[in-house]
């Protein structure tokens, strides 16, 4: 009996020491752990490494930042839909420049590899020197169409989605000067029920491009040559689901397709298989050369480490 008590006593002492150590660790790291849990969504999204922005209309402040781009040096271009301006921030989130775009509404912004910033605002597209934010000129819309969105191509130049006259849509490939290389007429409406509405476009490293379309509530995938491959939705939102709300789209170098839908950020594979969903306010998306993901939520920009 005494042996049994001794054994129990030894076991309970060991257990007590373990619990004590765990308790001390919890005590020491408690606040930090709670904070990290709050700011790092679970799953494959990398850790949040930067956030900046304050609601307001003053310089460096944000009112409705719904599109974002990032250059190879890590400078961030946050486009404010409501204020009609693009702000250039240093990699640390400090304001480095600001330009107002004349149409006073910005729908999309794309950093082209030669240092040109393409900005779509109220159906027009402009080119700016990305470093100085000096206007280089307006891009002529091919075929009399109206620009809806734009994304940079990995090999240089951009791809733009336009609303063409005659209730159709076009996808145009433009060089860094904004000159038309080729155009796909009726790219979406040939394969879908409706023409595009409030679209977003992204291009992967191989040149495959994806149009997130709020007209057909789906993401359309095309080959680099412009041949339609398929369409898909994202978690809980199959193609055609009218509850779909596509606010942004971006691709990273690991074959991840990021899709923002106002209150959620989704991760899907490039062939449309759902992977993760994160509950968070998300609008514009961009991925840097390092694979870092930038997410805007109107009055703030967040940077996440490369996806794990």
């Amino acid at each position: 009996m005494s042996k049994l008590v001794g054994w129990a006593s030894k076991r309970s002492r060991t257990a007590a020491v373990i619990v004590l150590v765990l308790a001390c660790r919890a005590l020491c790291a408690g606040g930090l752990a709670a904070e990290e849990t709050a700011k790092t969504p679970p799953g494959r999204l990398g850790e949040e490494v930067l956030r900046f922005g304050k609601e307001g209309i003053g310089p460096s402040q944000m009112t409705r930042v719904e599109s974002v781009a990032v250059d190879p040096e890590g400078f961030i271009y946050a486009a404010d839909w409501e204020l009609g301006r693009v702000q250039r921030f240093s990699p640390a989130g400090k304001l480095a420049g600001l330009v107002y775009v004349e149409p006073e509404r910005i729908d999309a912004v794309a950093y082209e590899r030669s240092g040109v910033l393409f900005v779509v605002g109220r159906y027009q597209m402009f080119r700016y020197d990305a470093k100085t934010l000096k206007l280089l000129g307006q891009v002529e819309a091919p075929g009399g169409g109206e620009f809806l969105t734009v994304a940079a191509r990995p090999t240089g130049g951009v791809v733009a989605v336009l609303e063409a006259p005659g209730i159709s849509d076009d996808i145009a490939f433009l060089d860094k000067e904004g000159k038309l290389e080729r155009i796909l007429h009726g790219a979406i409406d040939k394969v879908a029920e409706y023409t595009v509405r409030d679209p977003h476009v992204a291009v992967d490293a191989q040149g495959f491009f994806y149009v997130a379309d709020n007209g057909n509530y789906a993401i359309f995938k095309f080959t680099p040559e412009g041949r339609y491959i398929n369409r898909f939705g994202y978690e809980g939102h199959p193609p055609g689901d009218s509850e779909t709300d596509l606010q942004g789209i971006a691709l990273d170098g690991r074959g991840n397709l990021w899709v923002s839908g106002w209150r959620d950020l989704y991760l899907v594979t490039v062939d449309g298989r759902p992977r993760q969903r994160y509950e968070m306010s998300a609008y514009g998306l961009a991925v840097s050369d390092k694979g870092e993901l930038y997410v805007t939520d109107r009055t703030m920009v967040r940077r996440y480490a490369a996806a794990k």
Partner: protein
Amino acid sequence: MNNAHRRFAVLLLLLCAAALAAARKPPKPPAVDPTVIEGVANDAPPIFKAPPEEVPVLRLGTAAKGSERMTNVVLVTVDPQGFIYTGDVDAGRVLRFTPEGKFESLFFIAEPRRPWTGLAADRGGIVFVATGGRLFRYAGASGTLLGEVKHPDGAGFFHVAPRPDSGVVASWHNAQRDDLVLVGGDGAIETIHRDAVSGAAGEPVGDVLVAMDGRRTIYAAADRLHAVCIFKFTGEYENRFGSEGDEDGQFSGPIAGLTADGQGQIFVSDAKGVSVLLVKDGSFVRRLEVKGAGIAIDDDDALFAAAGTEVAKYRVPPPPRDD
């Protein structure tokens, strides 16, 4: 298990519970004492009974001696890096302070004996000085004179304020009319909105103070009208508010300062203090019982007020939200 073991186990459980509670509790933010004065040049006693927004968080010039002493500072501006420039109209010089309030350098302005009426630092760190009807540009860090902005109809510049992108907006007038002038950071005149305030008011208005907010809305305050007129960036007149009197939202005496923050508020300084009004409809928010002639807002929406021998910085709360 004997009583000692039980007591030890209970103690451990309590310890674990305390540890879990501590882990779940968010870290408490550090307490902020609004009466703390951050500045280095401050030996004045803090005003404990004033509302927090009327208690300076930084004071410049209070205890300054020698070259950094202020004699009659009525103008102030802040650049994007937070450097503070004060305009001493008696001494005819600009003092430059670090964001922490440490005196750094000074320069004397051209035409110091003329009435000095405007001072503004633009986004590129260029300091614009309106004096004797002329508008000069200086490199803020060195004080080097860079040149003069020339209105096609001659001298007549009065007030100047930073634009949110680059350059400044300036007011100009002669005997016939008054203009709002958009000047680039390089000193080139981009646009002149001719006969802006007089044209909107239907009468000559004389000296006009200007400000511009992040929507590029132009605000123009005229003493003679005791009102603030609102213009679009394109020069189109939109609205005006204010009148002469002592009630909330009214102005009395000369309007000495005008600025706008990033939260949709306009600040107007007159004999009674600094009135805070809402941009959207001119409705009165609060009056700050602070001394101030020239006023300015920095990128962090802090208010700076120039009051003769000192310049003070205030933290002003944003307006109440509609929702």
